[in-house]
């Protein structure tokens, strides 16, 4: 009887002690193809335990009531749930751009999701093709700290927990991305408004409780 009881409790104890950060599960995240699918497979991951996502539908619906919902895409530098016109999924994001006002057809577009960003360089002109370029290496710099962002997909990069922590600690700081492309090295400046909107998204979805 004692043996049965102890063998029944052991996995529960094991689960709490095996709680890991998503940083250690980036390969598994790629393989699972979505954070929601990974959280269903490995609920002991800290982000899955504490943060809100599609794996916590009731909490997510409550969170959606506190942010605007927009079809296709929301305004720049504003946190909102945008509705994917194809799938009708409501995805939290902050979209921002960094471009030279003298040449607005060239610049960078960054979309922040809770644990990933989409970053691309765009270049176009009248009579030219609009060309996107996806950096082959991205390093984030904030408050003297730098973080390498692993590549998840074409134009998609993982946001490590250290960077999320630094942004939550000081959302009005200057965040830059050093982006290396086949055309050269570029620095992408993120506006403080966009960064504050990203911090707001992280807080609403309880990512501040993960750290």
């Amino acid at each position, binding site marked *: 009887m004692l043996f049965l009881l102890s063998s029944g409790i052991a996995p529960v104890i094991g689960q709490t002690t095996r709680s890991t950060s998503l940083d250690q599960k980036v390969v598994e995240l790629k393989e699972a193809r979505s954070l929601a699918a990974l959280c269903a497979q490995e609920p002991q991951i800290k982000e899955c335990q504490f943060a809100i996502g599609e794996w916590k539908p009731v909490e997510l619906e409550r969170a959606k009531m506190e942010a605007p919902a927009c079809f296709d895409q929301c305004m720049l530098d504003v946190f909102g749930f945008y509705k994917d016109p194809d799938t009708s999924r409501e995805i939290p994001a902050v979209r921002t751009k960094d471009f030279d006002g003298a040449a607005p057809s060239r610049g960078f577009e960054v979309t922040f999701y809770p644990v990933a960003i989409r970053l691309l360089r765009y270049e176009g002109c009248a009579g030219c093709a609009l060309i996107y370029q*996806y950096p082959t290496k991205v390093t984030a710099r904030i408050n003297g700290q730098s973080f390498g962002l692993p590549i998840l997909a074409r134009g998609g990069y993982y946001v490590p927990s250290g960077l999320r922590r630094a942004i939550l600690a000081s959302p009005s700081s200057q965040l830059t991305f050093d982006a290396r492309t086949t055309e050269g090295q570029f620095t992408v400046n993120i506006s403080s408004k966009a960064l504050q909107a990203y911090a707001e998204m992280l807080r609403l979805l309880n990512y501040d409780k993960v750290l």
Partner: protein
Amino acid sequence: MKTFLRSLCAAAVLGGSALPASAQIGNPSVSSTSAVQNVFCEKNLRATVTRVSKTVLPSGYSDLKDVQLNSDFRYPSNDLPFSQAMAMNDPVTGQSVAVLDQNFIPGGSKVFSSWGRHGITIGGYWFYRTGGGFSTPIGTFIPFEADILWISDGSSFLVIKGCNGRFTVTKEIAEALRNYPAGKNGYIRFSTEGTGSAILSEIGKDTVAAWKKVYANWTPEAPPKVESLGF
């Protein structure tokens, strides 16, 4: 002439991403001995509808420029680089990868080719000059589209039939182009609509090198979406 060139360029770009359903790379039923369905070449004018899945690229192409084909014929994009592999995002047919090549006599005839993952396009124009001496010389441009293509493949060669300058890429063709000896110029032969002659044309060594990227061996699989990975 410029308009013609632009439309040719646009058609070639479309050829780079057009994909008949039954001719996907990796489809074992497609070989040189079986008929290849070409949706562009319906000789009998029956009304047909062919549904084709949009293509997607795997993440291995993240180093390439991703050309967004969002300018229609009124605003042609005529600045696409030659002899360089490019990813392309066609709003109608989906994502593809292709390399453009041109071979020409300055001020004269030109052969233009687009080597797409799923389709090849070959066209151009011949330039004829008449008159001169005491009369005013007159130059005439005659556009052409290839309909038969010869590609060297090791100790043998492939004879590929298409029409309207378009050829569907099969697994066998992709393999021949991928394995083409790199580091030097390549050669193709083609004949044009209504003629029996087989013209020899050179392909630049950079285009030959880009074939290795365009026709790289991979199984079609939709890459994960960034928004799904991040939320």
